[in-house]
């Protein structure tokens, strides 16, 4: 009964989405406010229906209703409640439900907070949002319905894929989807602006918070996924350049570019056409990511058995939306008037530099990800493009970006002073040089370029600090006045500094762990020991433990540094009888921001076990940096400029249109 209710609610949502996608547009053409005002009401109603469908599916999981095929295949009564809940989106059908729910949620937010948007813009944007929703609701109903029943209900479910039975599943997919789908708002507004053929700074001011929300969530989602695969898969890697990872990185790169170009548009009314294109690209890449993950066209660690009909359906959605959006762009973009002029050396120029490099880096990732697919369909050769490709293209493109990053915030709008900025960054550069020298002196081994990587990271971090020091004038004014200035600084300025600082922190972690991490793979007998970095691990023996739906074979290791006892590590092999599968549960020990990482294989008959032991120096900085980026984004989001009305444009030629242009929130 609950499942049928959910199924019905989903069909109802599709119907409402179709109305929401057509009526308001007709309204904008016939200038009928009644039809235009249907959009927010329909968006809220659609969200209510989709939410009901999602809750119905969740209830089927919580109640372990195995007469529902989807629940039978992915759940089990012995699983703890939290995993029964998260397994709602631990499978294809359910995760598409989550996708659509988040889409409808964002639509409802626009409807709620869009009260002071121009009527036509709101109507058009919500209509575009509804087209996307309708396409995906149809996709779920036609090819991946989670509410299908089994005639004879089994007593017990097949259990969730063991690798997904982890707290990471509760956090990572929803965050990632909030990011992916969040870009749909920028996309809808871009299409709405193109439909109207008019765009201005207020548009950017209104769209930027949504881009920021999506970017924050995507940053957390990617970082969370990276940490999850780091500790769960047992290979100790944090990024594999896997097609599915690239699928999430590409929207992030395009979104980061969009975030920066929207600033130029908001402040200076320049780069309008480019910003619209980025808004379209960011969401197009999100859609493509969904296609790559869901269709299984690429071999990936995330790939699963899939139904080819689904791939074709998503491909059709992809072609219609991306093709349609880009055609509309080609047709309408020339209508948009170009705004403010600027010299190449200026804040705008720096942001263009940023965009250029981010988009180019994004393009290399795109080509590396899709090239195997293209080659196979052209001449049937099956190839794989591995990490070396990305390291030797993405890396060199990112380095100039990193070096240029501290200069951007120090330059003035319109016309900047490169020499002045360089002088102010002198301290940061000296610090970076010291860091390079120190890295050469302290470390042994590793690539010769690694100390320079450390230097770049330190330069980025020190540059972010320099920005704040310059703005508060803490070195020139008495501390009290400087403190007042610091408090008075816009939160978005603090946000920029924190996010840029975070990039440096992450870079430092990546450089340190790839250059100076160490690895040992060996077999140890009981009582034997292994050494890595400054630590000695002694294998004390094997224990057996039972969990709710699994059996653990635990290896007990004692960790010593010199003669001092540091602690105990217990990696295990976890067997799930319901699926006849085993997973590796690595053990991690944090020392400062470095980690010791150990995972074990199946014990041999003589009692010895195969062991993978890693020392990961400064590895936690990678995710700590992402934390800084998140915090910076959140600070920027809370800037009052984005909440309270920014100065209205003076009453001029178009009083009717401009008076209503106010950002909400």
């Amino acid at each position, binding site marked *: 009964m609950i499942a049928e209710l959910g199924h019905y609610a989903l069909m109802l949502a599709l119907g409402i989405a179709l109305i929401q996608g057509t009526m308001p547009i007709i309204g904008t053409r016939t200038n009928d406010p009644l039809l235009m005002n249907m959009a927010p009401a329909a968006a809220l109603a659609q969200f209510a229906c989709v939410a009901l469908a999602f809750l119905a599916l969740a209830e089927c999981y919580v109640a372990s209703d195995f007469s529902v095929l989807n629940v039978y295949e992915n759940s089990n009564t012995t699983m703890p409640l939290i995993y029964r809940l998260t397994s709602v989106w631990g*499978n294809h059908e359910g995760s598409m439900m989550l996708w659509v729910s988040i889409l409808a949620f964002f639509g409802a937010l626009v409807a709620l907070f869009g009260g002071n948007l121009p009527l036509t813009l709101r109507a058009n944007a919500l209509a575009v949002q509804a087209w996307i929703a309708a396409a995906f609701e149809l996709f779920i109903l036609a090819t991946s319905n989670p509410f299908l029943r089994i005639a004879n209900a089994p007593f017990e479910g097949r259990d969730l894929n063991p690798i997904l039975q982890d707290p990471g599943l509760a956090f990572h997919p929803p965050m990632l989807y909030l990011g992916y789908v969040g870009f749909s708002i920028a996309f809808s507004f871009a299409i709405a602006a193109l439909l109207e053929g008019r765009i201005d700074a207020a548009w950017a001011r209104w769209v930027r918070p949504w881009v920021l929300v999506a970017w924050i969530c995507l940053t957390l989602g990617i970082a969370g996924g990276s940490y999850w695969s780091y500790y769960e898969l047992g290979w100790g890697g944090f990024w594999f350049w896997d097609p599915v990872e690239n699928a999430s990185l590409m929207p992030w790169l395009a979104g980061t570019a969009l975030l920066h170009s929207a600033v130029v548009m908001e402040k200076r009314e320049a780069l309008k056409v480019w910003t619209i294109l980025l808004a379209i690209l960011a969401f197009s890449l999100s859609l493509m990511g969904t296609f790559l993950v869901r269709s299984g066209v690429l071999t990936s660690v995330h790939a699963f*058995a899939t139904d080819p009909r689904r791939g074709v359906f998503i491909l059709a959605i992809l072609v219609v939306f991306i093709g349609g959006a880009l055609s509309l762009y080609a047709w309408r973009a020339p209508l948009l008037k170009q705004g403010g002029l600027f010299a*190449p050396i200026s804040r705008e120029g720096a942001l263009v530099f940023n965009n250029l490099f981010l988009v180019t880096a994004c393009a290399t990732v795109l080509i590396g990800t899709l090239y195997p697919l293209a080659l196979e369909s052209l001449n049937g050769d099956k190839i794989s493009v591995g990490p070396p490709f990305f390291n030797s293209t993405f890396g060199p493109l990112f380095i100039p970006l990193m070096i240029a990053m501290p200069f951007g915030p120090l330059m003035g709008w319109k016309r900047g002073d490169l020499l002045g900025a360089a002088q102010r960054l002198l301290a940061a550069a000296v610090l970076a040089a010291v860091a390079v020298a120190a890295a050469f002196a302290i470390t042994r081994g590793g690539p010769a370029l690694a100390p320079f990587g450390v230097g770049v990271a330190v330069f980025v971090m020190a540059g972010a600090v320099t920005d704040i020091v310059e703005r508060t004038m803490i070195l020139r004014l008495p501390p009290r006045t400087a403190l007042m200035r610091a408090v008075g600084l816009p939160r978005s300025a603090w946000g920029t500094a924190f996010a840029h600082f975070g990039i440096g922190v992450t870079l430092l972690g990546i450089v340190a762990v790839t250059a100076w991490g160490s690895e040992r793979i060996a077999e140890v007998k009981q009582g034997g020991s292994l050494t890595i970095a400054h630590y000695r691990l002694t294998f004390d023996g094997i224990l057996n433990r039972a969990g709710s739906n699994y059996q653990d074979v635990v290896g007990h290791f004692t960790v010593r540094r010199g003669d001092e006892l540091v602690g105990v590590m217990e990696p295990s092999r976890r067997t799930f009888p319901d699926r006849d599968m085993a997973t590796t549960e690595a053990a991690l020990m944090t020392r400062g921001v470095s980690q010791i990482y150990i995972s074990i294989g199946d014990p041999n008959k003589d009692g010895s076990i195969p062991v993978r032991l890693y020392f990961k120096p400064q590895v936690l900085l990678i995710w700590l940096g992402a934390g800084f980026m998140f915090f910076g984004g959140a600070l920027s989001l809370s800037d009052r400029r984005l909440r309270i009305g920014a100065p209205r444009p003076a009453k001029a030629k178009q009083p009717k249109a401009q008076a209503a242009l106010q950002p909400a929130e």
Partner: protein
Amino acid sequence: MTRKQRRLVLIGGSLGVLAIAVALMLNAFRDSIVFFNSPSDVLENHVGPGTRIRLGGLVKTGSLVRGDSLRIRFEVTDGKSEIPVTYDGVVPDLFREGQGVVAEGELNGSGTFVADTILAKHDATYMPKEVVDALKKSGHWKDEYEQRAALPASGATR
């Protein structure tokens, strides 16, 4: 600077960055592309020792031997031909006899494939697409695989 000059600087700069990116990519494509081969492909195309490839097929039942200090030997088969493989290290969770496998590495002088990477998969019912195609090509695709592959996806969400 005039508007025209500014635009020229911008366009010139963009083209410069694009040119660098294309050069980097072409260079990387030359060095870091790995071709996928089934055991029959390897024998038919005479893949030489030292060429880095991906070898895919099924782990032949009964061929897995564990040697000293984490060395394993097994044979990869597509039903028509077999290639012996050695690998030093801990194999992924889902590695077992009769299952699909993709190994990356190179052939040594005596025709043994020395793998340095065994690709891990998330799901017991999943079979790499390349392996499915290779098995179909050699006529050894069995319906039981189809059934396994046709089980609805117990997908990951990443």
